[in-house]
C-alpha cells in the first residue's frame, strides 16, 4: 500500500510569489508591533519550520511520520543540558541540531523499513518512549521535575526579538531547504519513492539512503526549534517536550497548507496558529472541539490543502471563466 498525497501538478513555482512578501511581513512584525504580535509571529515561524520539516518525510517521501515531537523534545533536552553545562546558547542550539540529526539517522535506519500504518504507529511510539525515557533518566534530565534554564537577559522586548529572529531564521532556512530539495536530485528521488518505492529502486534510486536522508532533514530543524523554544520558555519537562498533541498537530498544519507542496506548510502553519489563537480567546470551553471541527472540515472539503489539489487552479479557473463570460 502506498500513501500518496500530492497531486499531479503541483503549483510549486507560485510558492515564492507569496512566501517572500509573507516572510518580509513577518520579519517586520517585532519592529512595528508589540511583543504579543512578536510572540505570535514566533509561533508562526516555529510551526512553519516544523511543518516544512515534516513535509520532507510526510509530503515529499510519503511516509506518515508522527515523530516531530520526538525530535523537538530531543532538541529541547539536548540544548538545555548543554546550555546548563555552560555552552553558549547559540552554540547549544547548533549542537542540539546535530544531536537530533544523528539520532534521526540511527532511528531512520531502524524504523524506515516499516510502511504505512506500521510506520505511523512506530513513529508515535518513539515519541512516547522518549517521554518515558526523559522521565525515568532523572540524573540527566531531572526526570519529572524537568530542567530549568537561565532566563534570557535584557528585558522582554529584547528577548522577544532575539527568539523571534532565531525562529525566523530557522523557518527561512527550512524553506530554503524545501526549495532546494524540490529541485534537487534527492528531492526527485524522494518523489519517486513516494510514488512507487519498488519502481524507484528499479530506476536506480538508493531508496534506503534517500529515506534516511529525508528523515534526517525532517528532524534537523525540529531539533533547532526545540532547543530555541527551551531557551525561550526557560523550563522544560517530559510531557511538554515530548507532546503527543504537537506531534499530531504539525502534520495537520502541513495538510492544511498542502502536503507535498513546497511552501504550503508555511501557509498551513500560519492559518492554523491564527485560527487556534482566535478560537482560544473566543470560545473558552469549546476551543478544542472547534479545532476538531475545523480538522474534520479540512479533511472533507479541502483534501489537498490550501495549495494542493488545485485550489488555486480551481479558483483561477473560475476567475478565468468569469472573465471570459464578462468579456
Amino acid at each position: 500500500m502506498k500513501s500518496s498525497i500530492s497531486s499531479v501538478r503541483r503549483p510549486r513555482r507560485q510558492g515564492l510569489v507569496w512566501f517572500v512578501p509573507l516572510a518580509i511581513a513577518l520579519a517586520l512584525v517585532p519592529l512595528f508591533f508589540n511583543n504579543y504580535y512578536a510572540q505570535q509571529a514566533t509561533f508562526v515561524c516555529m510551526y512553519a519550520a516544523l511543518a516544512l520539516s515534516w513535509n520532507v518525510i510526510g509530503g515529499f517521501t510519503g511516509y506518515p511520520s508522527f515523530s516531530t515531537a520526538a525530535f523537538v523534545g530531543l532538541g529541547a533536552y539536548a540544548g538545555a543540558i548543554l546550555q546548563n553545562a555552560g555552552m553558549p546558547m547559540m552554540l547549544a542550539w547548533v549542537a542540539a541540531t546535530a544531536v537530533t540529526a544523528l539520532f534521526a539517522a540511527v532511528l531512520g535506519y531502524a524504523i524506515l523499513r516499516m510502511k504505512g500504518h506500521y510506520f505511523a504507529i512506530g513513529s508515535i511510539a518513539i515519541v512516547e518512549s522518549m517521554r518515558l525515557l526523559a522521565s525515568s533518566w532523572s540524573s540527566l534530565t531531572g526526570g519529572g521535575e524537568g530542567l530549568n534554564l537561565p532566563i534570557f537577559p535584557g528585558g522582554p522586548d529584547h528577548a522577544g526579538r532575539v527568539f523571534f529572529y532565531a525562529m525566523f531564521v530557522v523557518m527561512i532556512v527550512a524553506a530554503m531547504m524545501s526549495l532546494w530539495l524540490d529541485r534537487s536530485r534527492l528531492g526527485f528521488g524522494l518523489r519517486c519513492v513516494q510514488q512507487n518505492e519498488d519502481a524507484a529502486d528499479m530506476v536506480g534510486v538508493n531508496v534506503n539512503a534517500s529515506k534516511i536522508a529525508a528523515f534526517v532533514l525532517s528532524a534537523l530543524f525540529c531539533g533547532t526549534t526545540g532547543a530555541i523554544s527551551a531557551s525561550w520558555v526557560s523550563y522544560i519537562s517530559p510531557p511538554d517536550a515530548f507532546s503527543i498533541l504537537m506531534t499530531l498537530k504539525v502534520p495537520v498544519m502541513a495538510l492544511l497548507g498542502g502536503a507535498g507542496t513546497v511552501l504550503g506548510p508555511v501557509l498551513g502553519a500560519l492559518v492554523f496558529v491564527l485560527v487556534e489563537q482566535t478560537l482560544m480567546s473566543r470560545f473558552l470551553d469549546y476551543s478544542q472541539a472547534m479545532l476538531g471541527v475545523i480538522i474534520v472540515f479540512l479533511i472533507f472539503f479541502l483534501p489537498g490543502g490550501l495549495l494542493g489539489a488545485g485550489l488555486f487552479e480551481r479558483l483561477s479557473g473560475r476567475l478565468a471563466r468569469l472573465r471570459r463570460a464578462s468579456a
Partner: protein
Amino acid sequence: MRLLKPALIAVAALAALSRPALADDVIRIGAPLALTGGLADEGKKQQMAYSLWLKRVNAAGGIDVAGKKMKVEMIEIDYQTDEKRAQQIAERMITQDKVDFLTAPFGSGHTKVVAGVAERYGVPLMAAVASSESVFNQGYKFLFGTLAPNGGITENMAIMFSKAIPGTKKIAILGREDVFPKSMAVEMKASAERAGLQVVYNETYPVGTLDHATALSKMKSTQPDWIYITGYSQDLILARKQMVDLKVTAPIVTMLTGPSYQEYINALGPMANGVSSASWWHQSANFKSNDVFGSTDVFVKDFVGTFKADPDYVGASSAAALIALQKAIEKAGTTDKAKVRDALASLEIVTFYGPIKFGANGMNQGRDLPIIQVQNGKVVPLYPDPIKQGTLQAVR
C-alpha cells in the same frame, strides 16, 4: 501582485486579534487556567475561587486605590494543560489584554513557565497552587506563592506519625514522576530517614500509569508499617482502591494530596477512612480576617452555597492569593506593577486562609501546615494543636 493578498490578509488577521479599547479605571487580572486537558479539574477549582472573590470585591465597589475604587476584571483563558500554550497565553495577557497582574496556573511545572514570562515583563504573579521550592529558587522577583514550602510537611509527619503508632519502623514510598508529587516523595524519604525509619520501598511511577497493582504487590512483600504514596487524585483514588482489593495495608497509609481533595473522599467512600495526608489549609482552622470574606466560615459557606461542594486548599489558596494582591494594591495605593510588587514583598496580613507573609524567595512563610486524616468519611485535623480535632488512628 494579486498573490500578495495572502500576506496582507495574514497581517490583517494578526491585527484583528487585538481586543477593543480598554477602560482605564479597571484593574485587570489575567488567569491562565487549565479548563481542558489533564488538569481540567484543578483549573475549575481555581476558577470557582476566583469568581467568589471577584463577586465580593466588585460588590464592594472594587479595590481601593489611593481612595479611588477600581473595579476588577478577570481575564480567563483555557491553556488546555499545555505548557507552551500557558506561556503563550501569559504573554498574550500582558502585551495584548494589558493585564496589570497575573495568577499562575495549577501546579509547580506550569507555574514555572508562567513565572518566566511574568518575570521578563515585571508583572506580579500570584501563584496559588505551587509548593515546590524548585519553582521559587530561580531568583524570580515578581513571583509570590500562597502555599508554604513542602519541606516542613514531611518532617513533621515523620516525627509525629512514628510516635503516634509505636513500632513504626519501615516505610514504603511510591511517588509520581512529576514536579510536586516527586518532590514530596523525595522529601519524605529524607525526613523518614532522619526520623530513624527504614525505607523499604522507594519507586516513582511515570505520568501515564494506568494501574498500580504491580507496585502495590511489591510493596506488600516488604511488609511496611507505613505506606506513603504521592500523585494526583486519579492516581490516588485508584491506588487506594487497589490497596484494599489486594489487601495491601499498613498501620499508617498516607497519600499526598489525596484526602485534601473532596473528590478523593467522594470517590472512595469508606475506603478513604484512615488515610492520612497533609494540606496547606483546612476549613476547621477558623481565622477572623479583615478581607472580603471576613472569616474562614464565611468563605466556606459562600463556597458550599455557590458550588454545592466543600472547598479544599486549592480554592482557599486561590482566593487568598487574590486577597494578598488586593491588600498589596491598597497598601501601595497604586496599580504600578513594581510598587505593588514591593508591597507584596513586605505584606503581612491575616486572611480567612491564614497568615500570609512572603519570604525572600516569594513563598508564603513556613508555618505549621495541617496534618489530616479521614475518619468516618470526614477530614479530621491532627496537627497543629490549635485546630487539632483528633489523633492518628491506625488503619484497620
